[in-house]
């Protein structure tokens, strides 16, 4: 959070929601700065979709304050709606219309003049690689095409804050990568993205900041690296040219685990510059030749499992 003078795109405090006895959101606080990608990471049923539904004015919260694009969610939902775009988990396209009709429908609802609406639709079809399918009914589209059209429709109104609820769930790897690229391009254009995902890799790949949601509570928030650093288990792997050097290194470094076959050592490390420098200095002092050095930070899988305190968190999908 470097730019304090700009107001955040999304600011949420104490968000609560329950359905009967079932608490879905149990006091969520989060802040998303303008022009960044924020990922809400969690398993199915963690409350991700509920959060998006509340922030996109679909449902009301039981308690808490939220401002989206500078407008109070409860007090001025119309102003919020005018500023946001939402692409939900279930495709929000009109299956009976063609791709280009869907886009023009959005243009009409945004009251773009006819010519401008047409131009914008054509532009988006081009951008989302849907030109060939433009005249076909959406019911004939593949999952990836449908998702791209869905997002294209969200963009017709040039929203400043975009909510993407599990944008790549169910997509094949290629469509997934192309969706990621689209998201990156959007942010480069100044849009703020709030996305939910159950894929750790996706959050890692895209986000400026990640919040981990578990059973309606945020259990951690930070950059991907910050989150990884919170987890013990990171190490530096050193590989040596011959066994004698390996032996010297073991004596020099003390507490390490060795792999004689690979002539490698695993040195526990948090991956920070300081600890790396200490390690390298120590090797240097004894003139130990290292063939290869690699830093292994735990991936978000480890983070997620450690944070939610459930090592067999089956509901989390890792691909």
């Amino acid at each position, binding site marked *: 959070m470097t730019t304090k003078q700009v107001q955040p795109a999304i600011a949420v405090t104490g968000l609560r929601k329950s359905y009967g006895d079932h608490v879905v959101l149990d006091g969520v606080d989060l802040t998303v700065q303008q022009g960044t990608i924020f990922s809400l990471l969690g398993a199915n049923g963690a409350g991700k979709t509920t959060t998006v539904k509340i922030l996109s004015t*679909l449902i009301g919260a039981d308690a808490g304050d939220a401002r989206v694009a500078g407008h109070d969610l409860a007090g001025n939902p119309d102003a919020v709606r005018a500023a*946001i775009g*939402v692409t*939900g988990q279930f*495709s929000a396209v009109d299956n009976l219309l063609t791709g280009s009709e869907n886009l023009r429908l959005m243009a*009409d609802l945004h009251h773009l003049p006819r010519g401008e609406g047409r131009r914008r639709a054509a532009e988006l079809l081009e951008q989302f690689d849907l030109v060939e399918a433009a005249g076909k*009914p959406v019911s004939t589209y593949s999952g990836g095409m449908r998702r791209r059209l869905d997002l294209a429709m969200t963009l017709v109104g040039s929203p400043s804050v975009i909510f993407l609820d599990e944008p790549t769930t169910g997509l094949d790897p290629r469509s997934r990568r192309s969706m990621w690229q689209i998201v990156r391009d959007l942010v480069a254009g100044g849009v703020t993205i709030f996305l939910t995902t159950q894929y750790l890799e996706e959050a890692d790949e895209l986000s400026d900041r990640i919040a981990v949601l578990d059973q309606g509570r945020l259990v951690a928030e930070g950059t991907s690296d910050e989150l990884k650093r919170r987890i013990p288990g990171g190490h530096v792997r050193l590989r040596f040219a011959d066994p004698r050097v390996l032996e010297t290194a073991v004596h020099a470094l003390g507490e390490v685990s060795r792999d004689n076959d690979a002539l490698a050592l695993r040195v526990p490390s948090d991956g920070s510059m300081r600890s790396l420098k200490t390690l390298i200095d120590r090797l240097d002092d004894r003139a130990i030749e290292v063939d290869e050095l690699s830093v292994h930070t735990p991936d978000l899988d480890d983070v997620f499992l450690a944070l939610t305190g459930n090592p067999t968190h089956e509901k989390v999908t890792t691909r």
Partner: protein
Amino acid sequence: MSSHTLAAPAPANLRFHPLRDSATMLRRNLKHMLRYPSMTVILVGMPIVFLLLFVYVFGGTLGAGLGGVSGGRAVYVNYVAPAIILMTVTATVQGTAISIATDMTEGIIARFRTMHIARVSVLTGHVLGSMIQAVIGLTMVIGVALLVGFRPEAGFGAWLTTAGFLMVVTFALVWFAVALGQVSKSVETASNLPMPLVLLPFLGSGFVPTDSMPTALRLFAEYQPFTPIIETLRGLLMDKPIGDNAWLALTWCVAIALGGYLWSKRLFNREYAR
């Protein structure tokens, strides 16, 4: 991407355009109808089948029961035509309920809810679309009725009044169907819920005079809304005295329209829980 600013938009940007949005939604619904005409065909086909059934199968006997001078079928066509015309309207609104329910299962409604549009336009688009569908259906059904021997006595003025009256009835029933379509949890329910509307003309003066019915049924038949509506239509088309039926029918229509509209609006604004 155009430039993005988070400054609060000027109030002018936040103004709603219900007419413009309704027109957009109407275009959407008309496209649906044009692209998938089977529904319209079924909805118009049903009253035509009933017309032919009642004229050619039951018509001779039922007409004799009416005690006409020229006897049988020719008399009965004139008697039953207004009921069939009304049935065209109820069939259309059954279609309204189905298409509303179908729409509600689609994600695009969720999208509409998160957009800055006049919310009611989602519903008014359907209402206007159904009105147009009803006009087409009514024209076809009345055409077929004329072909099979319907001989209305109405002059030009009475025809105009009939058209206006039918639009009022359609408007009222469509709003009711919009609510039924929303209250249905599934498309199947939506196609069944309006069934009573289709049956009500039978339990009224639509197909036989109410005095031929047993007492309990007769009382129901005389006080249910469709009887004054049918009697008004019959009066207008056959140039017969209408009496209290006209204002009774209009009062029912206003009540149904208002109730349907308020109920629909409430249903549409209820918390979205999909």
